[in-house]
């Protein structure tokens, strides 16, 4: 029998007639190896006189030469200033307060400069309003060094002088003065008192035919109009979510970019349980957004359902009967109404529905509730775009009624849905000038390109909210031959003034009211005298008692709004257009940090994509799957909106996406003025018909497979509740912390002891009670997952950009990642129960089938975010396996990485339970293969001189910003003083505007971080491993209390 046994390598071998088997028997490879292909062409090869020996000689010589050359140190030149500016000391950073107001992002910020180069953006903690920098603002410093910037004024693709441009424009403007044709200024939102005044002056100079059109690429027109109708001003109501006990959001992504954003700080404060209370957040939305991910209760609904629900909610609160609409939202509305009624004026309702009726109803509801979180007295001015005016402008242009079109901060050719009309109209305009940062679509279609400076090179001011002013000052001299729009206007008006003088004049005459200009400039922010609302409480009391009558009197317009909301219907699938946290409206699309920034929800970088629910995807036979190299692949879709086709849209199956809706983000698909690598994605603006972010869409599956660069392939926690510990507010308030924040136990001599006990430890503990001992606290309740810390870390620590291909291979270099998990069941708690309930391998409760099911996220999952960086374990597994002791522990708690010592074995990365170590696979600087900011002279200027730029073949990771802690210590030593709490910061903790990350010295018993470490909610990630990390988390508490 044994002799009959036949061994075979593949099934084909069993078939005696298989030709390949026969071929393989004779040759090693089935096909001829294409040697010529990689050796070059055959003719060259045979013609060459270089033989093998010569080749070896060359190799030998070059090796020897390289070795000898390496022994000689290079000569470095040091070039001091000729005249050193007074305020610059080489090696010492200067900070300047300034403001970003680029038309989409508005914030008061600090700029860190080194030797005159801006290198980092930080929050301006002095600012009461808009003092937090989001991921895009953090990244905006790199945009300053964009190698694709327009470097000087141009006409017809040729560089020209400013004088030439000035002469042409002035002549044209003068000829248009008094003629019937319009002079149109089409600009971004400035929210700038000085620019408003300047434009008024410009109108005065050039007569009544000057028309100022404000254009926001992503419009908040409905909200502005509704507010205008109710309060007589085109502005946006402000909300303070800290004061709200119940937050109900109808599709408002207020942790993202809803109405200009900036709400996460206040929101997070209310989300941390204090005295047994925290806010309750209910979200009704179509796409899974950051806000929805943070909600306690999330209802996936189509925009139509949201409208109906909103109308019905109004009816419930008002006591009136709102009939009609579908009844499938009734249960949700009932629940929400009960919660709101309980909270009364501590509740707030917001909506992101771009529908003037919905916006009006929301304003009415908040008035009705007399919501404390609702502020209409001092509204926000960060969006001013007027759709009607833009539409009229396009019509006027095509009718030949526009003589001159001057554009600043806008790219309508790219971002207008009817951009073809705009381009055809542009031809009929007498003269068109585009103030452009990149040579973008609009710039290319204009007669003149006026090179615009970056905001870090400009003067300016902004009124983010009524009475809250902010100043913009340049942090660097203009890098190129640029001129800002306002200066150009002044020149064209024939004024000798600079815009700086103009602002100063405006401020001293009308804003400062005797306050010091220099002080305002130093602080960056200034709060003007606002007429205080006389006694809030008294007013509320009257509203409370007479709310019904009040509302009754104003019900006439609301009633019709309610009617139209209730009767809204949809035909087919609804496409919900949104903006991504990392890209916004796309004005910084040429920024590699933002391209590589993984979306907090989908964790996909370098792309936009259509999000679709699993059920819909299955119906359309669309799929996502992982391939062997760990990359995520997905189908393509073809979207048709009212005849406009967008083809080859990659598809991501998004848990939580409302059925019958799909999402697609703005900001991608830009081609002009972009580096090739950054021209990613598809342009969703083409589907933005009538500036409505909800469109009826036809979806078909398209051919082909898209390759994503997704950094997180595993979506669920698989019931491992100890990674993100969470509990409900009820349990948190009533039970002992051992119940909901259980310390893992180990058995020692048949006794259960906590894993942190010294007896459970095989290491001798180093005494860390002397000196500083740094800890980082991360509150999972306060963390919204916004990702500002990721970019801040990028900027502070010279983290390289690796590009889409490398990210796809999981070679992303982010030192700090924000993991996002979905529950597989309705809640994470049910996941844990399911895992606990498993029994055996097979069967209903079997682990084989069970775990397979748990890999899939629920249709409406709970979401949790968890920032993970090096945990700086006191008993670090990485340190013990390093063969060259390149990674070691400091007594201040930091796990230190000596790059110059590392030989790249990567044992440490293998042994790290948190997977936070990053390996430099390639030389990411001075390498044409990675043509991002570290590979051109301009982009290199953003590099932080206090941190190494790591080379190929070394391991790198979070250093707990040791360069920052060392700096703080040195400053204190030099001043001869003790260090106060709050002085120690890391890049991430300083960037965190929600207060989720707190850094400090736990040996300082008065510090906030040591207090947080003693908190009942404190736990360490993977505590049972016994690594004793210096980063700790706070248990996430969800408010599941019902009314």
């Amino acid at each position: 029998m044994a002799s009959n046994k036949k061994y075979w390598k593949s099934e084909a071998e069993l078939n005696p007639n298989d030709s390949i088997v026969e071929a393989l028997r004779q040759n090693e490879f089935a096909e001829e190896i294409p040697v010529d292909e990689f050796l070059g062409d055959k003719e060259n090869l045979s013609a060459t006189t270089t033989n093998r020996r010569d080749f070896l000689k060359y190799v030998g010589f070059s090796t020897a030469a390289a070795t000898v050359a390496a022994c000689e140190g290079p000569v470095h030149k040091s070039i001091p200033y000729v005249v050193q500016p007074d305020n610059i000391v080489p090696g010492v950073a200067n900070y300047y307060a300034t403001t970003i107001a680029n038309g989409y992002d508005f914030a008061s910020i600090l700029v860190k400069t080194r030797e005159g180069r801006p290198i980092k953006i930080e929050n301006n903690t002095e600012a009461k309003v808009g003092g937090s920098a989001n991921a895009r603002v953090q990244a905006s410093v790199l945009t300053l060094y964009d190698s694709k910037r327009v470097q000087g004024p141009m006409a017809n693709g040729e560089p020209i002088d400013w004088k030439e441009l000035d002469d042409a424009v002035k002549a044209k403007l003068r000829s248009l003065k008094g003629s019937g044709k319009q002079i149109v200024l089409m600009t971004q939102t400035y929210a700038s008192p000085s620019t408003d005044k300047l434009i008024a002056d410009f109108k005065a100079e050039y007569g009544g035919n000057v028309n100022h059109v404000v254009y926001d690429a992503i419009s908040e027109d409905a909200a502005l109009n509704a507010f205008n109708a109710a309060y007589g001003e085109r502005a946006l109501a402000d909300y303070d979510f800290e004061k709200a006990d119940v937050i109900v959001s109808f599709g408002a992504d207020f942790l993202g970019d809803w109405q200009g954003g900036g709400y996460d700080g206040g929101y997070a404060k209310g989300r941390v349980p204090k005295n047994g209370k925290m806010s309750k957040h209910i979200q009704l939305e179509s796409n899974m957004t950051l806000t929805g991910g943070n909600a306690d209760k999330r209802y996936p609904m189509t925009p139509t359902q949201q409208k109906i629900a909103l109308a019905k909610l109004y009816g419930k609160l008002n006591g009136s009967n709102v009939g009609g609409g579908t009844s499938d939202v009734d249960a949700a509305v009932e629940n929400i109404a009960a919660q709101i009624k309980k909270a009364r004026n501590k509740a707030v309702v917001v909506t992101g529905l771009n529908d003037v009726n919905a916006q009006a109803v929301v304003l009415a509801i908040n008035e009705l509730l007399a919501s404390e979180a609702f502020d209409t007295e001092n509204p926000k001015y960060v969006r001013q775009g007027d759709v009607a005016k833009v539409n009229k402008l396009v019509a006027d242009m095509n009718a030949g009624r526009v003589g001159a079109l001057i554009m600043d901060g806008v790219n309508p050719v790219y971002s207008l849905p009817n951009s073809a009309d705009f381009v055809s109209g542009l031809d009929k305009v007498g003269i068109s000038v585009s103030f452009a940062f990149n040579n973008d679509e609009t710039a290319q279609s204009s007669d003149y390109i006026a090179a615009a400076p970056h905001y870090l090179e400009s003067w300016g001011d902004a009124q983010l909210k009524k009475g809250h002013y902010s100043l913009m000052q340049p942090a660097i001299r203009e890098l190129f031959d640029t001129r800002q729009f306002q200066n150009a206007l002044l020149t064209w008006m024939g004024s000798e003034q600079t815009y700086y003088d103009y602002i100063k004049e405006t401020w001293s005459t009308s804003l400062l009211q005797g306050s010091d200009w220099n002080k305002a400039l130093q602080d960056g922010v200034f709060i003007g005298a606002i007429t205080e609302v006389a006694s809030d409480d008294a007013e509320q009391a009257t509203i409370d008692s007479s709310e019904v009558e009040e509302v009754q009197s104003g019900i006439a317009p609301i009633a019709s709004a309610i009617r139209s909301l209730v009767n809204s219907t949809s035909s087919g699938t609804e496409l919900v257009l949104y903006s991504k946290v990392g890209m916004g409206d796309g004005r910084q699309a040429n920024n590699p940090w933002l391209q590589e920034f993984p979306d907090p929800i989908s964790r996909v970088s370098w792309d936009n994509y259509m999000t679709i629910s699993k059920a819909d995807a299955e119906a359309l036979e669309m799929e996502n799957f992982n391939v062997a190299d760990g990359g995520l692949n997905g189908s393509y879709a073809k979207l048709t909106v009212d005849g406009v086709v967008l083809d080859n849209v990659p598809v991501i199956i998004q848990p939580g996406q409302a059925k019958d809706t799909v999402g697609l983000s703005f900001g991608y698909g830009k081609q002009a003025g972009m580096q090739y690598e950054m021209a990613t994605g598809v342009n969703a603006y083409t589907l933005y018909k009538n500036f409505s972010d909800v469109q009826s869409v036809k979806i078909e599956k398209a051919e082909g497979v898209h390759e994503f660069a997704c950094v997180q392939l595993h979506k669920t926690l698989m019931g491992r509740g100890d990674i993100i510990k969470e509990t409900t507010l009820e349990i948190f308030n009533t039970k002992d912390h051992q119940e909901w924040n259980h310390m893992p136990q180990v058995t020692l001599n048949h006794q259960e002891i906590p894993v942190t006990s010294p007896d459970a430890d095989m290491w001798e503990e180093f005494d860390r009670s002397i000196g500083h001992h740094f800890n980082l606290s991360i509150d999972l309740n306060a963390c919204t997952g916004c990702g500002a810390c990721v970019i801040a870390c990028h900027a502070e620590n010279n983290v390289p950009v690796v590009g889409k291909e490398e990210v796809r291979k999981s070679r992303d270099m982010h030192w700090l990642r924000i993991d996002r998990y979905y529950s597989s069941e309705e809640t994470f708690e049910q996941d844990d129960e399911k895992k606990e309930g498993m029994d055996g391998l097979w069967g209903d409760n079997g682990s084989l089938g069970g775990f397979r099911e748990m890999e899939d996220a629920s249709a409406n999952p709970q979401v949790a975010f968890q920032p993970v960086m090096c945990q700086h374990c006191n008993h670090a597994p990485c340190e013990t396996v390093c063969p060259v002791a390149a990674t070691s522990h400091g007594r201040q708690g930091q796990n230190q990485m000596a790059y110059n010592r590392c030989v790249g074995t990567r044992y440490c990365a293998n042994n790290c339970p948190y997977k936070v170590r990053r390996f430099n696979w390639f030389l990411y600087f001075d390498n044409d293969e990675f043509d991002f900011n570290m590979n051109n002279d301009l982009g290199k200027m953003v590099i932080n001189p206090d941190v190494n730029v790591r080379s190929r073949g070394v391991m790198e990771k979070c250093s707990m910003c040791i360069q920052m802690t060392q700096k703080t210590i040195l400053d204190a030593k030099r001043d001869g003083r003790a260090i106060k709490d709050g002085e120690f910061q890391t890049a991430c903790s300083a960037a965190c505007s929600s207060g989720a990350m707190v850094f400090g010295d736990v040996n300082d018993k008065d510090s906030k971080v040591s207090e947080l470490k003693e908190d009942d909610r404190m736990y360490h990630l993977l505590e049972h491993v016994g690594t004793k990390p210096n980063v700790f988390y706070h248990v996430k508490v969800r408010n599941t209390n019902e009314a």
Partner: protein
Amino acid sequence: MSPILARWNPIVLSIRSKYRAKNFDRNFVNMKKVLYRHLFSKVLGLSLLFFSISSYAQEEEAVSAEVVAEASGGGDAAKGKQLFNQNCAACHSLDRKMTGPALANVEARLSEDEGLDKEWLYEWIKNSPGMIKAGDAYANKIYAEYNQAAMTAFPTLSNTDVDDILAYTAAPPPAPVVAVAADATGEGAGSEGGVSNEIILGALALVFGLLVVMLILVNSTLRRIAEANGVILEKEKAEKRTPVWKAFAQNQFLVLVSAIFLLLASAYFAYGWMMQVGVDQGYAPVQPIHYSHKIHAGDNKIECKYCHSSARVSKTSGIPSLNVCMNCHKSIYEYKGNPEGPSAEDIANGYTNEFYTGEIKKLYKAVGWDEENQKYTGETQPVAWVRVHNLPDFAYFNHSQHVSVAGIECQTCHGPVEEMEIMEQFAPLTMGWCINCHRETNVKMEGNEYYEAIHAELSKKYGVEELTAAMMGGLECGKCHY
């Protein structure tokens, strides 16, 4: 050593001015290294140093003062010189236009050319702005001529003081005779030493040569005698014996021992050679402007941190910007040298007074200083110094930590800079050298509130009163490498 880790570390300070030029080539490119020939020239140089001269200084001072005193009329010229140096020298020179006019024989000049008497001068010196305001013709003329730079009023000077100063200005410029004499003696002494040395060496070499020749001659004579007498030399007999190298090859033990010895020896030398790779101790590159630390920090005793001011607050000590140079060099336009004149060694190296003055002119060219009109032209040429101390990019070093906090003398690491004519790297700047100092040096904690708590606890823990940097954690990798 692991691959190059490039810390983006632009010590280059001219970036701002470069921006203006819209030029992003920041000279970071590796330049060819200036070869420095140390050993040989250094040994020679050191031996010559012993012949330097001293102790003429005071004598000369006295002599010149006497001359001046004799020459002057009314005032005390010696006192006048002192007052002139204190009050006037920043803007005036005797024989040269500076911020203000040349003042040699000013009194005579004014009375002859302008008909102005001493009284006018008294008033002008004590209150020049007042005179300009009052509309004095010559006052306004001179004010306009010198770029409307108002002269500081000196109300504190008495008429006698002014007389003294005028006496000094009236004296002929100090005769250079003394200096020349000193020069001559210096030269003589220097050259004398050199000659005698060479003669001794030459004589010795001659003697040795003669000895060798004699030996060869004797040997050949003996051979010839032996041949003539028919004596068979040992050499022919020896041929029958096994040659030494063969015997050596056959003795395996010896071969083994010498192989081991050779290997160890070569390993020793290879190690030694490799350990000096990248260690540039003694590196003294040629600089674009011959700046002598010896003259500035040594002879003139200028504090290091006057020029390298950022060492107090920054991680870099900073190469002073050219405006710092001009603080002094606006008025110091020529090198007058040591009172005793240049040493023989200096002259051998070409370090004459004219040479140094030429270097000052290079500074003027770089900073764009128009000496004639005493103003800046605005045409600047930043100086590309060759960096002497090149710490690897992966090592973080902060000057202020060591200079301000620890109070370490600059010379501890940089050596006797005040004696260096050409700046050179004194310390090896190796990690071992850093670590060693951190192990041995006690941290200066007194009176620094920052250290209070940590000192109390650590000194209890280690049972010592003084703590070294190492005890504070100064040996941890991450303190310097991040």
